[in-house]
């Protein structure tokens, strides 16, 4: 009995050891086992700190487990029927108080250094105000180099369509959502590679420029989490937090982040997508956006119902679906399928007002959607989910 027991203990502990070591030695660049080294100087400092401390704690841990294992084997009763009786030793007790303390000091020094470096957001060239909402982000370019009034502002919503994530397998009771086939008339779609990460309008950043983020929130606390830049800053309603980054010039590309503070139902559905582009490219983009912003809203009328419905569906799935459901069945928001408001052509104005002004928990969309978008969305609402009013709302109806 005793010896099988020992084999079992040793086997279990060895397993543990091996798993620990294999993790510690697997430092592949972008593995999904270890921390992401990221692309900025700061993120790489942080990564270095992480690796160093992981080694320290692994060694300490393994030493302690080694001692326990050795003792478990060597000091078992079948080997040592009579236990020793010592139960104090001032020397070792002082040693194992002081030595860990010293180790801690050696960890604290680099940590302090990195922390101080991270704190310094001075001398940034581009300032972007990042605002968290339930459940999307908005970005406002405030200042860029000498330009103190950039005024480019947009919202950024999850792009993944509901057919990809809404794939219920059970029905009724706890699961009142129906099966995928019930809901979409088809099996769930295959998931894109950027599932749950891609957005409709990403944040564009120039490479090689120090960017300062002013992070805040409109409703509850969110958190702006960009692992590749080692940024995580809480977006707190009523306060502005600062963070900054410089993405090196050779690191242009697409980076993803997520909301990292529980903000309600769709906390998992408000990702961050950043495109880092060369500085020249950024300048052109920003100039274009600025022009668009200056030229006022696009009021081109829709040529037919079809065109409005296509845009409307796209916008609905980006902005409304989280509260009102893919089938207009309601949720946090009211349902649309077959409701009085949606099917009474005399109440179109009311419908428009709700979107523009908001009502109770229904947010205002005046800033987030253009009049053209709003017109499209309302047209969609009133002609989808089994509603068949045939109403075609034009951008000019909304803008007035």
């Amino acid at each position, binding site marked *: 009995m005793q010896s099988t027991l020992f084999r079992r203990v040793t086997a279990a502990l060895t397993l543990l050891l091996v798993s620990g070591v294999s993790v510690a030695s697997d430092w592949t660049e972008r593995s999904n086992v270890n921390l992401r080294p990221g692309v900025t100087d700061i993120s790489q400092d942080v990564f270095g700190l992480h690796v160093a401390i992981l080694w320290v704690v692994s060694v300490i841990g393994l030493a302690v487990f080694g001692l326990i294992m050795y003792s478990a084997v060597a000091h078992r009763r079948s080997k040592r029927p009579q236990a020793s009786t010592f139960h104090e030793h001032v020397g070792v007790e002082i040693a194992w108080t002081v030595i860990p303390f010293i180790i801690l000091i050696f960890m604290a020094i680099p940590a302090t250094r990195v922390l101080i470096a991270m704190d310094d957001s001075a001398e940034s060239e581009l300032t972007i*105000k990042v605002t968290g909402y339930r459940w999307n982000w908005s970005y406002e370019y405030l200042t860029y180099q000498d330009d103190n009034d950039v005024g480019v502002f947009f919202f950024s919503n999850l792009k993944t369509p509901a057919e990809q994530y809404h794939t219920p397998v059970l029905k009724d009771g706890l699961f009142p959502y129906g099966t995928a086939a019930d809901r979409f008339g088809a099996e769930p779609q295959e998931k894109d590679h950027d599932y749950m990460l891609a957005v409709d309008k990403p944040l564009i950043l120039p490479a090689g420029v120090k960017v300062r983020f*002013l992070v*805040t929130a409109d409703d509850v606390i969110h958190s702006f989490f960009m692992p590749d830049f080692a940024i995580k800053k809480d977006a707190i309603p*009523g*306060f*502005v937090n*600062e963070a900054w980054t410089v993405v090196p010039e050779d690191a242009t590309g697409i980076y993803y982040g997520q909301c990292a503070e529980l903000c309600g139902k769709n906390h998992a559905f408000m990702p961050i997508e950043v495109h880092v582009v060369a500085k020249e490219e950024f300048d052109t983009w920003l100039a274009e956006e600025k022009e668009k912003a200056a030229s006022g809203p696009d009021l081109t009328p829709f040529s037919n119902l079809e065109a409005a419905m296509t845009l409307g569906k796209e916008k609905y799935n980006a902005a409304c679906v989280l509260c009102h459901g893919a089938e207009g069945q309601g949720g946090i928001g009211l349902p649309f399928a077959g409701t009085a408001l949606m099917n009474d052509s005399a109440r179109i104005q009311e419908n428009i007002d709700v979107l523009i002004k908001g009502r109770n928990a229904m947010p205002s969309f005046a800033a987030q959607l253009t009049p053209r978008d709003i017109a499209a969305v309302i047209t969609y609402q009133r002609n989808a989910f089994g509603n068949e009013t045939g109403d075609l709302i034009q951008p000019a109806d909304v803008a007035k």
Partner: protein
Amino acid sequence: MAENSSKYYVPESSPWPLFGSIGLFLIAIGAANFIQQSTQFGQNTLRADGTWGQYVLMAGVLWMIATMFFWWRDTIKESLTGLHNEQLSGSYRQGMIWFIFSEVMFFGALFGALFYARWLIIPWLGGAGNNAMTHELLWPGFQAMWPLTTTPDGRTTQVMGAWGLPAINTAILIVSSITLTIAHHALIVGERGRLILFQGITILLGLFFLSLQVYEYYHAYHELGLTLEAGIYGSLFFFLTGFHGIHVSMGTLMLIVCFFRILKGHFTKENHFVYEASAWYWHFVDVVWLFLFVVVYWL
């Protein structure tokens, strides 16, 4: 704890703890429903129509009072029949001390919130520290000040001064602590007349304090615009003074119960734990007030 001391009294099984839990349960669900039905976020209109919560709450409170009555009746009976020994009153005493400690921590949290608001939040909203952008982008018109008479979103109130009623109230409480000590001393040396007199005076002072406090609230609401909704200053003002007031009420109640037990001759020179406990409680409430006076009204 000498070997020959009488046995520790372990009471026979008792229904009151279970009843007390039921009482709390009723109070909790009743209060939750009542508050919900009768108030709305951001506005304080009591509309008590169409709610069952108030009845459950009321039932819970009555139930609780009845339970406490029976529970204490049992304890008093045990005390009078001599089942309590030295060690048990030691347990009671220590229990009371730790209870008061927990109350200290409760007020500690409220005072902590006060200091945090005053030293950190308000300056930050005004742009101090690394919050320049908070001020610039979100609250550009806001002026940091304490007491906060204009909130970031523009609600205004007036300040409750320290040297009117509050100062009088401070004096009342200090005097009441002294009279209570005199009464306590009288109990120990067995001067019944003096005990009754000073116990009575203490209770009257407590009641007087409470009525002035009610008047002060009336004044705050109707003349100063200092309300619960008046921003963090009003919130903290009413939280600190309000919870203090609730404690004074409880303390006064305890003193009144003791008063009647004195009249009934329940306390002896040696055996008067409940009296002592109420006295400690009273002094504790008094000390809290002193802090309050300094940090809420004065500075």
